[in-house]
C-alpha cells in the first residue's frame, strides 16, 4: 500500500532538493559585494528599530478564532467534495443545509462588527 505514496515522496524530495540547491548555488557561485544597506534587515522600507517580539492586538485573536471555526467547516467539505457525484441530491441538500446554518453565523459576525478593525 505504501508504494502508492512513492510519487509523493519523490515530489517532496524534489521540492526540498530544489530549495536547498538554490540556496547552496547562490552561496557558492553568486558574487558578494555587501554594503551597509544590503545587510540591514528588510522591513518594507521601515527603519527596524525594536524587537520583533511585539505584543499583538487581541483583534488578531478574534480573526484566528473565526478562521478555525470556518476551517473545521472545510474539513467536512473535503469528504463531501470527494464523493460529490456518488452522494447525489441527498449529499447536496445536506451540505446546503450545513452551509446555510453556518451562514447564519456569518451574518451574525458581520452585523455585530466582529471583523471591524477599530
Amino acid at each position: 500500500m505504501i508504494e502508492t505514496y512513492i510519487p509523493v515522496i519523490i515530489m517532496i524530495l524534489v521540492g526540498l532538493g530544489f530549495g536547498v540547491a538554490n540556496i547552496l548555488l547562490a552561496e557558492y557561485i553568486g558574487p558578494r559585494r555587501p554594503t551597509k544597506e544590503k545587510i540591514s534587515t528588510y522591513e518594507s522600507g521601515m527603519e527596524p528599530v525594536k524587537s520583533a517580539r511585539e505584543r499583538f492586538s487581541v483583534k488578531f485573536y478574534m480573526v484566528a478564532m473565526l478562521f478555525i471555526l470556518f476551517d473545521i467547516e472545510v474539513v467536512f467539505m473535503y469528504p463531501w467534495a470527494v464523493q460529490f457525484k456518488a452522494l447525489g441530491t441527498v449529499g447536496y441538500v445536506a451540505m446546503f443545509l450545513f452551509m446555510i446554518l453556518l451562514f447564519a453565523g456569518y451574518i451574525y459576525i458581520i452585523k455585530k462588527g466582529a471583523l471591524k478593525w477599530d
Partner: protein
Amino acid sequence: MSLQVIMFMILGVGAIVTALGTITRRNPVASAMNLVAHFFMLSGLYLTLQAQFVAVVQVLVYAGAIMVLVVFVIMLLNVGKEEAHHESFTIRKVLGLVFAGAIVVQMLAIYLGSSPSAMSQLSSKSLTLGATESIGTVLFNQYLFPFEVISLLLLSALIGAVILAKRKVD
C-alpha cells in the same frame, strides 16, 4: 521489513523527537514550531496506517488552524524567553512520571491481554476504512444527523468567541 514498517519507524522516531522538543524548548516560539513538525510526523504516521482522511485533517486543522492560534496566543501574551522558571525535582514531576508509567503499563496490558485474532480481523477490514471516499459515504448517509448537529456546536462556539473577545463592550 516492508517499506511501510520502515516509514512507520522513521516517522515514529521523528514524532517522539519533535514532541520532546516541544516540551523542552525554553523559547515558546521554538516550542510551537516543534509542535508543527510533530503534527506533520503524526500525519505521516496516519498515512502509513491507511488513514488518509485523518492525515489530511491533521495537517489542515492542527498544523494549519490550531497552530495559527497557538502562535497568536504566544504573540498576544508576549511570552519571551521563559524566565528562569526552575522547578526542582518536585512531587509534581514524580506524580507525572508515575501516571505516565501507569498509562504505558495499561496500554501494554491491553495489548498483550487481547486476542491476536480479533486484531488481524480488524486490520483486514479497515484497509479502506480510512479512505476519504468511504468517510464521505458514511458521513453523508448514516451519520448525516450528527453532521448537521455539528453546525450548532460550531455556531455556539462562534457566538462565544465574538462575545468574549470583542473589544468594545458598549
